[in-house]
């Protein structure tokens, strides 16, 4: 580490977190309808358990995990299954979803359930409970959390890293979670450490969240080796590989997983969610979402039922300003622009950022002038300039030889490019094309 808590390269976009960083998380009222896609996580979509007309209570399982790399889906509000149809999905596709007409007169109290006694459970059972709770990575990637809790025996894990970096501009989801629920986070860490059998846990937080650093430092358990590591504010500090590099000083080998260097990384929101499972027994049915950006009238940190439509969330935040032009799910660096106000917020939706013409300006594209800025920003040391040239002519195999598969699509190269070449978009396409070709071959 040598005194510098950061990685090489990266960029410094304006943080713009002041809009919501001081606002407490408020619960949003239940909307009239909830839309729950069966595919809300990486891995296999869940399999349907309900049919149209069924009455469901809040927290009831409506879809079952299909295999190990999958999680169940739970009703986030009591009501009646109104329809099962294709609905717009945040990834841009239409996905099979359960539409629930919310019961206006329900007290929305989940059925009483048995809270698992974590102290008496073995690692396998903890993993089972986490899967049953439908927990996925709440940092955006939505990878089923329990899968990371069962590393194979040939890769002993020694450190649990809790990712509270939240390096995306605008978002304050993890920030508020850490400030408001530090005990729950610490409880989640305790359970995870037991499940993984690790001795050490490190909570990485960017230095622009001093209150979160203070709250978690105050609540550190005395009987466990857990520490808080303040990190330099730089994008993409919260990328798994960058965070591991800072905490352990080791680079995850190309094409390998964090467990290959003895590390498991979990988002701080997922940790809090696990804490809640073992506190109340409730599955993942709501999450903290930052609704922010200059294009939204009342920026807020909200506790939103999973499956709430974008339209309802925006309406609760007093709607959009006149000059709003773009709505992004997730942060502005890696998030996806949404074309449809009926798209639901799902488990992996960290935030809703509404941008105006000023930020999301459409820009003229110029030829690459080989200025080298992309090379100086790339956190995995690729040559985006060269990759971009290859992408323009569809030379995907050559891109692969130039290490395209190491690209994590963080967007730093596009962010700095003075010629406004959509580099990371081209790389996402290139990676997809290569995967397809490999699948065919």
């Amino acid at each position, binding site marked *: 580490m040598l005194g510098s808590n950061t990685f090489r390269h990266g960029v410094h976009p304006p943080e713009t977190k002041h809009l919501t960083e001081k606002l407490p998380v408020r619960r949003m009222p239940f909307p009239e309808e909830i839309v729950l896609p069966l595919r809300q996580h990486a891995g296999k979509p869940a399999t349907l358990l309900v049919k149209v007309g069924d009455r469901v209570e809040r927290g009831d399982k409506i879809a079952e995990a299909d295999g190990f790399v999958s999680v169940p889906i739970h009703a986030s509000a009591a009501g009646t299954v109104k329809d099962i149809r294709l609905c717009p999905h945040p990834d841009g596709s239409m996905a099979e979803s359960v539409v629930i007409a919310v019961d206006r007169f329900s007290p929305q109290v989940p059925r009483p359930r048995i809270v698992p006694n974590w102290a008496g459970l073995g690692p396998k059972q903890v993993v089972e409970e986490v899967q049953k709770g439908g927990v996925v990575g709440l940092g955006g990637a939505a990878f089923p959390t329990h899968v990371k809790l069962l590393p194979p025996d040939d890769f002993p894990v020694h450190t649990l890293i809790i990712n509270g970096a939240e390096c995306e501009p605008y978002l304050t989801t993890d920030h508020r979670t850490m400030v408001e629920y530090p005990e729950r986070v610490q409880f989640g860490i305790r359970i995870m450490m037991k499940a993984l059998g690790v001795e050490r846990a490190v909570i990485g937080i960017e230095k622009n969240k001093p209150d979160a650093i203070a709250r978690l430092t105050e609540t550190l358990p005395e009987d466990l080796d857990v520490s808080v590591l303040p990190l330099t504010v730089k994008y993409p500090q919260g990328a798994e590989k960058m965070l591991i590099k800072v905490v352990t000083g080791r680079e995850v080998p*190309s094409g390998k997983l964090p467990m290959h260097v003895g590390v498991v990384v979990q988002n701080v929101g997922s940790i809090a969610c696990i804490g809640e499972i073992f506190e109340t027994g409730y599955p993942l049915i709501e999450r903290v979402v930052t609704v922010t950006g200059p294009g939204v009238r009342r920026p807020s940190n909200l506790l939103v039922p999973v499956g709430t439509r974008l339209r309802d969330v925006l*309406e609760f935040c007093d709607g959009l300003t006149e000059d709003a032009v*773009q709505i992004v799910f997730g942060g502005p660096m890696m998030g996806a622009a949404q074309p449809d*106000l009926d798209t639901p917020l799902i488990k992996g939706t960290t935030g809703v950022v509404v941008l105006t013409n000023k930020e999301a300006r459409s820009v003229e594209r110029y030829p690459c002038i080989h200025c080298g800025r992309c*090379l100086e920003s790339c956190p995995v*040391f690729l040559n985006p300039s*060269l990759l971009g040239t290859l992408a323009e002519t569809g030379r995907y195999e050559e891109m692969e030889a130039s290490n395209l598969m*190491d690209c994590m699509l963080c967007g730093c190269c596009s962010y700095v490019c003075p010629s406004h070449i959509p580099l990371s978009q081209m790389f996402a396409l290139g990676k997809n094309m290569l995967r397809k070709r490999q699948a065919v071959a």
Partner: protein
Amino acid sequence: MTEWNVGRGLDAGTDIDSLTEIRLRIAASPHLRTAHSTPRIMWNVVGSLVPILAVAIYYFGPSALLVIAAATFGSVLTERLFGKKRSTADGSAVITGLLLGLILPPGFPLWMAFLGGMFGVGFGKLIFGGLGQNVFNPALLGRAFLQAAFPLAITTWPVQPDSWWSLRGDNFALPLMSPSAPDVVTGATPLGLMKFEGLSTSTLDLMIGSTGGSIGETAGLLILVCGGYLALRKYLDWRIPLSIFLTVFVFSGGLWLLGPDRFPNPVFMLFSGGLMLGAMYMATDMVTSPVTAAGSWVFGIGVGLLVVLIRVWGGLPEGVMYAILFMNALVPFINRATQPRVFGQTRRKPKGAEA
């Protein structure tokens, strides 16, 4: 703190239809960008050249202005006629013209300067496909063409005239006519004096620019300041000029220590001829220099070595132009050889293809 009122959203009468009327823009991430743009870089370079132009005109009078204008007119016109639509707006042709003007002698016939500008942009850039595609620095290629075509005119240096207003040579020679140059040949550049007569020039004169030479190459200190501004604003890669200066200083310094009477001293080497302008403005041309950080060092060291080699042992007094053009040709190979090690990989992958 925001006032919290759960019902406010609906009471305030947010018109949901106005939400749907908004045309939501779809784009790929990232949705934020720096304010940088290629034209902004180019025009900043142009802006940083203004003081150098002003001093050039101060030293060389109306001739300097005319030559620079002719070269710039030639290159911008060519870009306008044969370049892509609206490509003159990106400012790169203006840079080529200005730089070409600055590396010509003040008494240079205007039609030749114009031709040089046309050649630089036409054959130095557009023929490769326009901005970003060229191998060689267009301004230097224009000058190399002029040196090959008009060897006499380009090595004709003026003596200081009596009045600032008088021309420094036969600027208005008719096209395809030899310029009349009876007296002016006697003036000489510091490098010429050094090479052919073994005379040195005072360091102070070199730094402030009150010597003979090409229009914009003489004021070494000023060029250093203007280039330094660009480096601070990150509009040029500081590694390239620094490595050139260090290499020239160390190499020529070593020679000077071996034989102080036979070789020029290193400070003279740094501030004479086109080294300052070349290192700051032409070697750093982004299009024709390496993209990797390590490559920039290799490139700069290469230019520095070649400059000293040509100046000391070559047939010409000046070597900056050929040194940079030669290293330009090597840039693709330098890029390939200096690919950074990818995160999480243990060795460099030399097999990767290079454009």
